[in-house]
């Protein structure tokens, strides 16, 4: 069943073999995705051939919100193989039984192979500096103090991008690793990307 689905996707793939991992110079690219447990939108723009700037917002089960701005730089290893390095800074807000909030910095490394389908593998490390605020009410008055706890979210993704049209691409990925220093159940995503003409 799965192999039939994959073959169907490959058959839809266009001959365009430019990479979808990062926009080309002057190109704007936006991806919307859903899955378990993440839903999100990521936008990228490459002002030149050296770097692209990104904006990313995603939510897990609508109880955890992550948002980040980043820069990414593509590196060409060969005609087909490329590496993408990314750095980001943003924040996390989580509600419910385990509330958490704070600033988060991250790095990601993705290796991909362009073609009719584009398999990719990425590793990420995001460090959350969760802020806890305590308001102490004393005889001398009220005072708020802050402390910080660091959590790591590390893991990897294994996915495939299937260009459906010159400007539209399907993205399917499995992800695993740790979130906030705890084991995370493997997740999956299904996304659709659109980009402007290069």
């Amino acid at each position, binding site marked *: 069943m799965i192999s039939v689905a994959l073959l169907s996707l490959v058959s839809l793939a266009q001959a365009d073999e430019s990479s979808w991992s990062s926009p080309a110079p002057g190109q704007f690219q936006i991806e919307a995705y859903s899955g378990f447990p993440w839903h999100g939108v990521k936008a990228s723009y490459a002002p030149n051939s050296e770097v692209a700037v990104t904006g990313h917002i995603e939510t897990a089960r609508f109880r955890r919100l992550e948002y980040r701005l980043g820069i990414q730089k593509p590196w060409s290893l060969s005609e087909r193989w490329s590496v993408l390095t990314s750095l980001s800074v943003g*924040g*996390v*807000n989580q*509600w419910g039984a385990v*509330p958490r*909030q*704070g*600033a988060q910095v991250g790095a990601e490394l993705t290796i991909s192979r362009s073609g009719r389908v584009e398999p990719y593998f990425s590793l990420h490390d995001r460090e959350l*500096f969760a*802020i*806890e*605020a*305590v*308001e*102490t*009410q*004393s*005889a001398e008055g009220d005072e*708020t103090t*802050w402390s910080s706890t660091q959590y790591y979210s590390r893991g990897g993704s294994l996915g495939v991008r299937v260009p459906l049209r010159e400007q539209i691409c399907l993205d399917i990925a499995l992800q695993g690793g740790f979130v906030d220093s705890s084991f995370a159940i493997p997740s999956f995503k299904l996304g659709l990307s659109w980009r402007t003409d290069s």
Partner: protein
Amino acid sequence: MKRLAFPFLLACSACQGPDVIYEVEYSGSVISDQTGAVELWFLHSQWGDDTLETSYMVIDTLWIDDASTFSGLLEVPQGTGSGLSVYGWQDLNGDGEHCRPGTEPELAGLASVTDYPNHVVEVELILDTACEGPEGI
């Protein structure tokens, strides 16, 4: 850099309110006919909401060398607790356990801090009940 970081961090923490601590400077005395160290339990008199509402929830504990005066600073977490009570039991035989079977009865007592909430409180605790927890006094 710090000037830039602080508002950013503050913005990230703006969505969830802080935990609130009510600081209480306490002083008091323990009155007992026995001798020995005394363990004091500072308690929310009432705790919990609705079906889960109950009494005497421990906030903090403290050992003092004997039935005497005591003082200190208590941080009372604010949330579903109200009122302040102090329970104490005296360790007559120094075994660290209250009325272990086969040992001499050890006195305990419970006092309600009537002028709470207040940042400065006084309490007098009389140990006159043998082998009871706060729930039994």
